[in-house]
């Protein structure tokens, strides 16, 4: 196990260097250079341009810039925003908790609803219920979630007035950001109104972001359950006279969970892609919103640094999934 772990962890280093190279290269494909591109139609004085280029090291040969960039990244410096003059790292940390909070709630929604639905569909295979569920999950997987988010706002916020339209919490409340997770901070602040406000802001975006994962989880659970329910040991368990519910929940579901857990782990990329759209629709101040804003403002250091951090995040989660899987399934440790 230790050798598998070490090898898998060692593999991440060259991949990460390659990822930094790719994000470095992408930014250098910008026509002109980041400074010129940002100066827009008004142009910029030649001396000032040269000065800025020197300041950002853009007058150096490309390979040296890359080496410098690698050194910077290795020392934890991801550059400074051209707009806010804040460090990219600090901005990322500022927006990151909001995305985590949203994504975790979306996943919870997907699993808490998707898992039981998948199990029920598998047990009641071929019934109207099963077909209905398959239909709904295919629709869910095809959903343009930016539109789904807007429709949700239109129906639940504008027409029914149940939830607020956008943001994380009402302006009426101020909560000391201790952890950065609004729900937890509200909990500690003992302010019931703030808690309620934060929760009501969170619920709609979480449902919207959780829709595609819900469809995937329900489908995956159903097919994994169908496979497991055909196994001999399930027949044995039934033959022993165990109750139907016990066989399904204790014997079948436990084994069916392995592929489902893997799929959930590998969904982090999908979730982040979805977060970009969901956060834009709901004006949710997370990293997806931050990246889109930076792209639209042509704030290249932020785009580059953000891209890198998000890629690193996905790599770490994938590593975690692989290691868990290796732990659960000894056959793949070789």
């Amino acid at each position, binding site marked *: 196990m230790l050798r598998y772990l070490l090898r898998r962890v060692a593999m991440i280093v060259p*991949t990460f260097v*390659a*990822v930094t190279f*790719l994000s470095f290269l*992408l*930014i250098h*494909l*910008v*026509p002109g250079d980041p400074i010129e591109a940002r100066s827009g139609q008004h142009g910029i004085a030649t001396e000032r341009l040269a000065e800025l280029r020197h300041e950002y090291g853009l007058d150096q040969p490309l390979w040296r810039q890359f080496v410098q960039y690698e050194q910077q990244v290795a020392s934890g410096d991801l550059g400074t925003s051209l707009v806010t003059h804040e460090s990219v790292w600090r901005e990322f940390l500022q927006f990151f908790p909001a995305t985590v909070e949203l994504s975790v709630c979306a996943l919870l929604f997907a699993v808490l609803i998707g898992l039981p639905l998948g199990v029920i569909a598998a047990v009641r295979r071929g019934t109207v219920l099963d077909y209905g569920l*398959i*239909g709904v999950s*295919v*629709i869910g*997987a*095809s*959903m*343009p979630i*930016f*539109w*789904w988010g*807007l*429709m949700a706002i*239109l129906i639940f916020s*504008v027409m029914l007035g149940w939830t607020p339209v956008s943001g994380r919490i009402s302006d009426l409340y101020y909560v000391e950001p201790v952890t950065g997770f609004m729900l937890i901070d509200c909990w500690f602040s003992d302010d019931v109104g703030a808690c309620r406000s934060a929760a009501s802001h969170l619920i709609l975006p979480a449902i919207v972001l959780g829709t595609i994962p819900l469809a995937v989880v329900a489908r995956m659970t159903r097919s994994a359950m169908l496979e497991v329910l055909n196994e001999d040991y399930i027949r044995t368990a039934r033959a022993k006279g165990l109750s139907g519910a016990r066989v399904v929940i204790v014997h079948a579901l436990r084994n069916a969970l392995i592929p489902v857990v893997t799929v959930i782990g590998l969904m982090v*990329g*999908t979730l*982040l*892609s*979805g977060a*970009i*759209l969901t956060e*834009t629709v709901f004006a949710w101040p997370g990293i*997806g919103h931050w*990246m*889109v804003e930076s*792209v*639209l403002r*042509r704030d290249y250091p932020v*785009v580059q640094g953000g*891209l890198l951090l*998000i*890629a690193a995040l*996905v*790599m770490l989660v*994938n590593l975690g999934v692989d290691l868990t899987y290796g732990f659960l399934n000894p056959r793949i440790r070789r």
Partner: protein
Amino acid sequence: MLQKAITVPTPGALRLFWRSFSGNRGAVLGLAIMLALIVTAVFAGIVAPHAPDEQFRDYFLTPPAWENGGTTRFLLGTDDVGRDILSRLIYGARLSLLIGAAVVGLSLSIGVVLGLIAAFAGGVVDVALMRLMDIVLVFPSLLLAIVIVAILGPGLFNAMLAVAVVMLPSFTRLTRASAMAELSRDYVTATRAAGASTPRLMFDTVLPNCLAPLIVQATLGFASAILDAAALGFLGLGAQPPTPEWGTMLAGALQYYQRAWWVLTFPGLAILFTVLAFNLFGDGLRDALDPKLRR
């Protein structure tokens, strides 16, 4: 082209395929929607009641025909500058199908070539190509597409290019995996022994036998290409405003959708049904082409 590729294996395969495919009601529904869309897109000029960019100055934000204040002249209502939404959706279908076809065509052809090269060359080339694809996969797909568009500049063409790049790894990996499986078969060895050149082996001998999974993946890719291009359009990075692209129409509806639900609802439904049709069709194809699942 789809049908031809499927008939290749043995005579009667098409009938076998159809029997299996038509048993799947969802897939047949998907096929029907797809055909309807294609017909609408081809004959957009005849089917659409108005030109997509014609502005009717007396009809700003007219509701759909069945609502109070609606008129049968504009069945699905008009937008903020008095353009007929139905006509724009019909022309948008043309655009979306073109986007899907162009993106999948580009990504598939490059992916197939790269995959075959990786499978045939093996060794360092194989490892290098596959690692590169792994690295592309590390980035969340929409984020990578956004960054690529940010660099190339917003616009429909660049958005299509970005989506094609994002989809490349799936085609490359799939081609490589199926080609590797074929390479160890006797018929490949025999053809090689008969003196066939490597390109001939690649495209003439091996590729036709790898087509089934590629066709399925291409159909599903069509759906995600349309979805991603619409998302880019929605973020203001894809097709630019006067273009009747569905995602761009949604972005334009943002300011007043709270008073005029129809400007938001219909373009989204168009995207949903189109993507759904291709996904249903793709799933049906997979089940029909995969002998393991055939009952």
